[in-house]
């Protein structure tokens, strides 16, 4: 009986998380378009709903009702699988991301996370790595030169940054002594991990930009060189899933993990703890600010060349991440 209860609760939570993420991602597109608009001194979407507020729904309807073209010579199985492979792992990371401490409403304890397994962070990294198969499949299955080059570029970039990201995350794990994201947050009640881990934070910022394919690392779909990169042959919702997964869901989830690792998760901002603000508001505020930072970078900078990106990964980011481990080790010896 207890098992059934757990399963029902899990299913309900998963549905809420996935629906919330879908709706959230849809409105993140609006946020990005508005943000880009104001950066570029234009108003952004304005006409659907009040101040363009219903634009994401119109976009979704448009993308869903579009004719679904599949070119003749594609590998059909991989072609369909690719868009799922890009999308599903990105949303599965949510399973291990906690959004706050357990709390009680009407006598029922509610845990605002799906699971709290002791290797949560490793699982998140693993899901992140799986999503690159989507990109490579898309590039290969399209049977076209531009997607092929785009997919291979992305693979080259990801291999470099996965390594650096892995090493960068070692610092916070060493300080918290746990892989569980919830325990990492609890360990930051006094001091955020950004303090000794500043180098790791820089590395993680670069890695998030590279993994989500945002400028200056958007080589995989550099539209001036490769038309659309690996999504050139895709149409309709199959096309829509790629940017949704990469630009919004992955960026959001990785921002959340970064906040958990370096900015104390749902702990209040120092000296503002007396404010009557619930924990998850703090958490979302931080995630939102970080997400906006990524948007800001995206809409300001030009893009690197692919060889420069991989060079940066191996020659700068990896040594930085290793140096961070060294610094944190000394920090732990001194301050215990």
């Amino acid at each position, binding site marked *: 009986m207890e098992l059934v209860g757990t399963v029902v609760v899990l299913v309900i939570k998963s549905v809420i998380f996935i629906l919330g993420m879908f709706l959230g991602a849809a409105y993140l597109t609006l946020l990005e378009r508005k943000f*880009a608009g104001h950066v*570029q001194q234009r108003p952004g979407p304005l006409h659907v709903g009040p101040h363009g507020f219903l634009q994401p729904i119109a976009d979704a309807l448009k993308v869903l009702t579009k004719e679904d073209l599949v070119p003749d010579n594609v590998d059909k199985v991989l072609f369909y699988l690719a868009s799922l492979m890009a999308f599903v792992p990105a949303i599965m990371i949510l399973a291990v991301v906690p959004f706050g401490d357990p709390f009680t409403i009407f006598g029922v304890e509610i845990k605002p996370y799906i699971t709290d397994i002791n290797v949560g962070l490793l699982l998140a990294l693993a899901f992140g790595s799986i999503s690159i198969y989507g990109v490579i499949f898309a590039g290969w299955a399209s049977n076209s*030169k531009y997607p092929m*080059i785009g997919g291979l570029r992305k693979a080259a970039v990801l291999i470099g940054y996965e390594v650096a990201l892995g090493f960068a995350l070692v610092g916070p794990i060493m300080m918290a002594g746990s892989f569980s994201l919830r325990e990492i947050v609890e360990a930051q009640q006094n001091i955020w991990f950004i303090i000794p881990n500043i180098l790791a934070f820089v590395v993680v910022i670069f890695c998030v930009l590279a993994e989500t394919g945002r400028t200056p690392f958007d080589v995989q779909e550099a539209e001036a*060189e490769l038309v659309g990169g690996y999504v050139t042959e895709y149409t309709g919702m199959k096309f829509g899933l790629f940017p949704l997964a990469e630009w919004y869901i992955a960026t959001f989830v990785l921002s959340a993990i970064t906040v958990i690792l370096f900015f104390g998760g749902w702990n209040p901002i120092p000296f503002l703890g007396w404010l009557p603000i619930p924990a998850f508001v703090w958490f979302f505020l931080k995630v939102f600010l970080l997400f906006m930072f990524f948007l800001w970078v995206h809409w*300001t*900078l*030009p893009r*690197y060349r692919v*060889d420069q990106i991989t060079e940066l990964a191996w020659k700068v980011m990896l040594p930085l991440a290793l140096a961070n481990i060294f610094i944190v080790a000394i920090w732990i010896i001194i301050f215990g």
Partner: protein
Amino acid sequence: MHLWIEEKELKEIKDKFPSIAINKEENFTYIQVKKSQLLEILRFLKDRLNYKMFIDFFCIDFPLHNPRFQGVYILFSPEKKKRVAVKVWAEDNSLPSVISLWKGAKWAEREAWDMFGVKFEGHENLVRMFLWEGYKYHPLRKDFPLKGYEEVYLPSLNLRPGEIPAHNYSPYHTEIPTMEDLERTQKKRMEKRNQIVLNWGPLHPGTHGTIWFLFDMEGEYIKNCDIILGQLHRGVEKIAENLTYTQFIPYTDRMDYISALCSQVAYVNAVEKLLGIEPPEKAKFIRTMMCELQRINSHLLWLGTYALDLGALTIFLYAFREREKIMDIIEGIAGIRLNSSYIRIGGVAKDLPEGALDVIKHFCEDFSEKIKEYETILTKNRIWLKRNVNVGIITEEDVYSYGLTGVVARSAGVPYDIRMIQPTDAYDKVDFELPLGTVGDCYDRYLLRMEEMRQSVNIVRQCVKKLEKMKDENYIASDNPYVLPTLEEVFNSIESMVKDFNLRIYGEQVPEGEIYLSGENPRGELGFYINSKGEGRPYRLRIRSGAFYNLQIFTKLIIGRTVADAVALLGSLDPVVGETDR
């Protein structure tokens, strides 16, 4: 200003080669040589007399003469700032190729083969330039009709069975290339030697128009490259032979559609010089001002698209914000935004409207601030530097050999600017500096264009100051017999009406003669060679396109670099397909 070779040097050549004939005129001085001596004389001119910069090569068709085709080479000496032309008759329909002397002749010779059917002995790959392989005709020959030969059966797709087509409907069409034709063209240009051949274009967001690049790639590195032009070829030179001089002005707009006013001014100046018309002072200043506004406009479009190509999306909209203001100014003055057709033989089409100068003055003040804004985002940006510095280095030798002009030549440190060398209009009365590059890479070209915008603002300011004092002066020399009268004059006097009628129907009866005159387009030297036989329309009009010659060096510079660099390099060479293809 006189720019042709001097008497002393002509004599030196004559002493060395007694068999040549020299024709010295004010507008066009040429040496008539025999085919057997051509290479020798060209080498003498290049090495001994320092006429080392290749400007242009083209052919002229004389159907009644034997041999039928005449080739014309135009060379330039950067030290002496003098030009010389060499003419040669193509005996047996062929000429020796001059690629061994100037690499820039490669495309010009291919164009001559394409348009006239003149063969070139020793050319490395003599294929068509604009048309596809397998096309039967050479369209610039005088016996090729303007309309072409309608011989392909192409019934209308909209015609349903049972319907009766219009009385003049013909299902026959001039030949159009089929897929097989295009495949053959592609195979002829480049052989596959490495991993993949990437067709970059003809319709591709990175190519700025319809250029078709072929990249033979090893991984991401380009090992071999060729360019197929001609998707926008409209035969402007052929059209010119069938129009009066005034009627041709709108066609110059549509060549380099981003800097239409500059093209018009270059063309009209050539015609005016041939006719001996002196436009009024006010018209000269208006032309200079409009040219410089157009130059800022063109450079802004370049900046926006260049940054867009390198991934900086926001700069694109910032640049267009200012470009829009210039567009509005041009619209206010000329009536049309893009293809303005504002310049007329003998002056300009309309007087400046009231308040135009105030608007321009405000724009100049505002714009200096905006350039700083662009530079804050880009100039010292590390990513921008990484993408631009040491990419596509052009040397001084390349400039002379390929006939590079404009910003591309100046980035290599060659002070070649037609506004300085041969000032037309009011350029000799305004003050401006000529920025020069040191390295010759993409970053230098970026810096030069930014500096040129500043200089252009400076010129516009000076012109505005002068024009404010010339409010009531005449803007077109309509008392000249070759110049169209203004609308007011046509309505008020019968003489003007008759003159208007005659000029519009029969064209300006230009006296017999030749001229080569060029203007400094934002894309390089835009030269017009006009050969007049004393009729209302030119016998031959050759357009020396700066973008055409500048694009040619792309195939050399891209070897060994990646596709991402191809975008940066193409952007910094800044070709406009309307001008390369004509």
